[in-house]
Structure formats: C-alpha cells, structure tokens
C-alpha cells in the first residue's frame, strides 16, 4: 500500500506540473491585461511600462513561468496583483468556508442520494421509483442560482429561519449546502439505483432471499456493500466538483470562499491568484481521489494495490 501511495504521489507531482503549465499559459494568453486594471484607463505609457517591469510582465513567458515555479518550490504562490496580498494567505483564509460548504453538501448529497437510489431500485417501476428519479432529475437539472433563490425566499425572507447571505458559521451554511447538495443527490441517486439494480439480479441475492433473510438485512448486508463501490468513486469525484461548483452558490449567498475569490481574480486578470487557485483545486481533486482509492481497498478485500 505504501508503495502504491508513493507511486501515486509521484504521478500527482507530474499532473500538477502539467496543470501549472496549462494554467500559466491560459491566464497569459486570454485577452486582458492586469496592468490595465491596476492603473486604470488614463494611465501614462511610462507608468504602464514601469508597472510591467515591477511585476515582471515585461519578461518572456518562459522566464515568467520559471519564476512562478521557483516561487512554488519555496511554497510561495505569489502575490495578488490587485490586492497586494499573498495568494497562499488568501487561499488559507478562504478555503475553510468552501471546504465546509463542499463537505456539508457532500454529506447531504450522499445520504439523500443513497437513500433515494436504494428506494428507487428496491421499488423499481413503482411510484416510489418515479418520485425518487424525479427528485434526482430536479437536483441535476435545476440551476444552482434558481434553487438558491427559491430557498432564500422561503427559508430566509418569508420565514426568517436562516440568514439570507454572508458567512456566520455552520448555521449560515445550511441553505448553501442544500443548494449545492441537491445536484450531488441527483447524481448519487441515479448511480446507486443502477448499481443496486445490477446487484439485486445477482444469484447470491436470490439465494439469500430464498434462505429467508429479511429485506433490510438483505439490502444492507448483501446488496449495499457491492452496490456502493461505484457510488463511492462518484462521491470522490463529486467532492472535487463541489469545490469547483461552489462558485455560483458562494456568489448568490455572498460567502467568502475560494469560488468568489476565483471569480474576482479572473475578472480582474489577477494572474497569480488565478494560477494559485487552479493549482490548489487540482491538488485537492487529486488528493481526494487518492483517498477514495485507499478507502476502496479498506472496504473491499478484492481490491489490492500491492
């Protein structure tokens, strides 16, 4: 196992290097110049050139990239062109909000999704199945901003139970988490249903049923364990998507997470912040998937990495 983790760690570094090149090229090649933003539209040419030199933007791209990587190796993600703050500091300050939001959404999505999926599979082709799949469809297809406004209107505006916007601890993350978790619920419910349906048809399920095992034990003990393997893969992937998908939710609920930071950074062509954020997100995505792979081997004895 440790050898496997080491191997994955190495491939993670290669992936991150690739991501760093891609993101560096992307932020430098899209139209728009941070100097324009910093100096405003009436800046003199002299001021523009001076600032470009100060930021190192007058150097050729490969040299700028090497400087970026050099900083990265020292644990320095650079300094925001716009706010003058350290990129790492900004991420550290804002990530807890996004992480909590993604985590709570994942918990809501996983629990609701698995339950809905099981009900839909066990009660296949009944009204329960159809209702569960309808909820799943709404979760997948309804736009996040629409769900968010709907929830705010009901539970914050008309019934003032939760705050409308802003971050004030766990309580203020309930509506955003439901908003974000609904999409996950839909995906997980569909995956659980199809995976469960496949398992239900297996001989060992029929045998257990014939032996008189009660339904709950049959599903929990024989069905769910096998059906959940692909679902867990999906949950891992979903966590990465939730981190990235938090952008809209954070904007509507005015949450100070890394999603809203990313939007701001892209709009102002704050290259160091965009680069730092994308690299960080890539790192988190890879890390979570590695964790999921490790969890596999722990829950399914058939999976061995050595």
């Amino acid at each position, binding site marked *: 196992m440790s050898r496997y983790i080491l191997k994955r760690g190495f491939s993670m570094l290669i992936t991150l290097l690739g991501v760093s090149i891609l993101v560096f090229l992307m932020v430098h090649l899209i139209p728009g110049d941070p100097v324009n*933003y910093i100096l405003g539209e009436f800046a003199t040419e002299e001021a523009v050139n001076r600032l470009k030199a100060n930021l190192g933007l007058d150097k050729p791209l490969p040299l700028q990239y090497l400087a970026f990587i050099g900083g990265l190796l020292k644990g320095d993600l650079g300094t925001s062109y716009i706010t003058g703050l350290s990129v790492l500091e900004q991420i550290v300050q804002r990530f807890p909000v996004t992480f909590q939001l993604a985590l709570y959404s994942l918990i809501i999505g996983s629990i609701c999704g698995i339950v809905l999926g099981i009900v839909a599979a066990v009660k296949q082709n009944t009204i329960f199945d159809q209702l569960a799949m309808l909820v799943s469809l709404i979760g997948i297809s309804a736009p996040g901003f629409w769900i968010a406004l709907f929830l705010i209107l009901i539970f914050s505006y008309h019934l003032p139970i939760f705050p409308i916007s802003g971050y004030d*601890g766990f309580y203020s993350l309930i509506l955003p988490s439901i908003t974000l978790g609904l999409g996950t619920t839909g995906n997980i419910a569909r995956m659980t249903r199809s995976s469960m349906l496949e398992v239900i048809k297996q001989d060992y399920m029929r045998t257990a049923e014939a032996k008189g095992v009660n339904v709950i034990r049959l599903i929990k003990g024989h069905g769910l364990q096998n059906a959940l393997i692909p679902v867990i893969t999906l949950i891992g992937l979903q966590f990465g998507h939730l981190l990235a998908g938090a952008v809209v939710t954070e904007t509507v609920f005015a949450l100070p997470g890394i999603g809203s930071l990313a939007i701001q950074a892209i709009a102002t062509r704050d290259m160091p912040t965009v680069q730092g954020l994308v690299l960080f997100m890539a790192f988190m995505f890879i890390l979570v998937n590695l964790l999921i792979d490790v969890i596999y081997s722990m829950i399914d004895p058939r999976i061995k990495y050595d």
Partner: protein
Amino acid sequence: MVMKKTGFIKMFLLSLFVLVVLSACSGNSKDAQTQPTDQGKKETNTTVETPKQGGGTITVTSVREPDTVDVQRTTWVDDANNHLYEPLVRFDFDGKVVPALAESFEVSPDGLVITFTLREGTTYHTGTPVTAEGIKKSFQRFMDSAPTSYMVGPLEEVVVVSDLKFELHFREAFAPFLSNATTAYLAPLDPSVIDELGDDFGTKASAAGILKLAEISRGSFVKYDTFSDFQLGQGYSQNKGAANFDSVVFRFISDDDTRILEFKRGNSQIMLSVPPNYISELENDPQVELARTLANGHTYLGMNNKKPVFQDLRVRQAIALAVDRAPIVDYALEGAAQALFGPLPPTIPGYSQKVEDQAAQMYGRNIEKARQLLAEAGYEQTNNNGIVMKDGKPLSIELWVTSEPTMQRIAQLLQNQLAEAGIEMRISVQEDATIRAQSPEGAHEMLLWTYGWYDADILHSLFGRGISTRVHYQNDALIEILEKARVEVDPNVRMKMYEDAQMIIVEESPWVPLFVRQNVVAYRDIEGFQVHPITGSIIWSDITKK
C-alpha cells in the same frame, strides 16, 4: 486488509465524521470572516473604541468590494473606501471647490504655485496631528508609487512653509488639479502609519476622514467606526462634528437578488447601486426612500475612428441620427437616467446647455436624414434585407458590450434602431477586462462604454493626442483647445474653451453620447440621509439611525 463485510458503511460514515470534525476545527480559525451584521447569531471581536454618539451600526450593501482601502494603491474609490479620507478641498453642492482639510488655498496668478493652509488642531485617526510635513510625505508616496499619480500633473515639489502651510510647485500650470484634489485619491494619509507599515498601509489605514477603519474581512465586509475627533463637517451638513452612530459596515453582495432581499428584510439600511429593474418596486415600499443623483460621466456608443468606415463624417452622423435615446432610458434603464446629446454631463463643471441644445437639435432621431447621409456616403439599398451596401459589402458593424444585463438590453435596442437606418449591428459580448485591454489596440469597431470624472479635462483623456484609447479620434484643432484648457488658470476662460471643444466634438460626431445614469441609493430606518449631488457620495454627518 480484510474487514468485516458490514464494516464498510461504518468506515464510510466514520470518514465523513472525521472530515466534519476537521472542518469544524478549521472553522475556528476564521475570525476575520465572521459576519458583523445584526442578523442574530454573533458579533465580531472588533474593539469599538469610539464613544457612543447616538448609537447603532449602519449596514450598507454594496456590489463591489474595493481591492484595498489604501487610496494610493487603487484606481477604484467609492463609498466603501473613501470616507476614511478627508481631502484638502471638496466640491460644494454647486460644484465649486471649497476648503475641507485645508482651511484655505490660493492659486498664484501664473498657476504654478498653489498654497494650502491647514486647520489648527486637526488629527488623523491615530491621533497624529495633521501637519504640512506629514502631507508632504503623503504626496511624495503618491507621486512615487500611486497608479493614479497622473492626477497631480506636472507637480514638481511640495514645499513646507510652516507647520500648517505648504506650497505645491508645478512645472507648468495644471488647471484640473483642484478638481482632482477633491477626490480621496489625493487626500493626505497618516504619515505615522506610512512610516510603520509602508506598502501595508491598507491593513491599518489611517487618515482624517469621518470614518476610521475598524476591521476588514476579505470577501465579506469592511467595518468602520466613527472618528470621534472629526470636526470637519462641510457647509452642506448641519453636524460639523463626529457622526451620530457607532459604526458602518459595508457588506459586499454581488448578486442583485440577494442584495435586494437583504435590504427589503431590513438587514441593511442603505443599498447602493439599486438595479434599474428594482427601482419601481422599492419606490412603492413605504418604508424605503430613494436618493437619486446623476453620475459624473455618461454612457456612449463609441466608434473606433481608426476604422475606414468611420472616417466618413456622414456615416458617423447617420449612426448618431439613427439612435433614439427615449426607449433606452425608459425601458432599459427604467427611467433611471437622463438622455444626453453633448459630450459632458451636467455634473461636470464645463457642461454647457448651449452645447447640449445644439447637439440635441443636430442629432434628434431622424431616420430619413440618416438614410440620406448614408446614400451620400455611397451606401445604397441593393437587396431586400434592409441593410445598405457599398462596393458589394453590407454596412455591418460589430459592437462590443460587457455582460452587464442593462448594457445588453441597451445594445439590443440600438441594434433595432440602427437596423431601421439600414445599418447592421452585430452584438459581441466581451469581458470587461478584454474590452479594457483590446480597445486601446483598436481591435474593436464599436463599443458601448462609460466614462466618469469630476473635471472637464476628461475630454483630454478621451480625445488627447495619442491617448484616445476608446474612440481613437484625433483632431488637431480639438487637441489644441484641450491642451490649452489644461493650463488655463482663469476658470471662466477655461470653461469657454471647453465649450468650444465640445462644439467641435458635436459637429464631428466621433461618438454618440447616450445618457447619464442616475446613481440610485435606497435607504430605510435612518434619518438625515443625503447624497452629494456632484460626487454621488454619502454624507454621513447628519445620518442617525431611527
């Protein structure tokens, strides 16, 4: 690694539990992100040093978070970061420059020296006295490193005459200086904090304004406390001393719907930048009042005059004649704007009613005349799609517009209006940053853009030699007048020069001025609310919470 068959669910739930615990721990390190509003859960750990004036916290919801509260490190100043600062001079309600932090000022006859005398006993938020030496330090920092350093023009030296008197020496006269000095950009910074923090001034910014910085939470809010020693209330405010409340919190909510719901629920007392589509709803709310002021600039349909198609005056004039401002103001902006034909809005000194009337007379909508001018320019109707053609090519122009919904609605109206004259307009939605970067290169054909400033010298920035970055229009006669106006000391002579310059712009039609927006601010549960009619800035002195 074999587990009991049913153990995996427990394992999975345990993993989630561990993550929750971890996240709860990480949540504890977020003091700076705690919401400061009175929505009910908890207060911030901010120390409020200011004695109570009348009490309460006023919450303001705003769209855009300032990149920094250090005005010498930004090009964006608004209510959320400018009340920390007290400029040397201010505009009164008539647009006249009057003393503020300075007790008086005097411009030498040749315009090369401006002498300021400071008020006695004034201090910055830290208690450091306001002195000429400190102001010199602040100016020096501005000239050395501020992105807006061009605002002081050819300023050569700051000469300290005495503790409370200093002179600004210019290489040549720079008439826009006093207007520029009314802005927070040129307001003095506390020299003791400059010495202590240098480039990090913004983290503990101190100046002489009516509000002092209490707390910044990036992505959430900026909190200010009342500056209890403030004694610089202006002639237009009854209260000359400190504000009548404890603190002000600016919350940044970019989503219009969320912002409006927070305001309607009573969680904020002031809502800046009311979106046009919510104005009538708020007008009908008996608990809400609206304050409207005209912006210091206008929105225009800019032509890239470098492009061959726009080098024909008849085409430029035809486009101007095809535009109908009334539906744009009435429908796209829900009445929250004033149609404009001339180059300057009424809020910028230099605005001329004569110019405006002349422009309105020349460019009131006239489709027949527009078609006739196009025909004279060689554009004829040669097929049945309604678009005029010349040399086998249709008159088809691309318009760059930002993703702001209101601007897109305006673009659609313009598209229909120009089509009636036989001009095809293709709307291209571009990112704001892209337009800013690409239009100076001349990559666009037309754009829908807005400018804003407090002085008629803005015309020099828009049409000056080699710096016309949006419309790329160069006219020697115009440039000559604008350059002379920059160094003219006599305000009356200067304003006459701007009138002449505007007449040239009207006749040459290098752009189509469309409208001046109204800054609409909604407020509730407070009294004594005023917005400065020239700057559009909130006047805090007389505000009290009900």
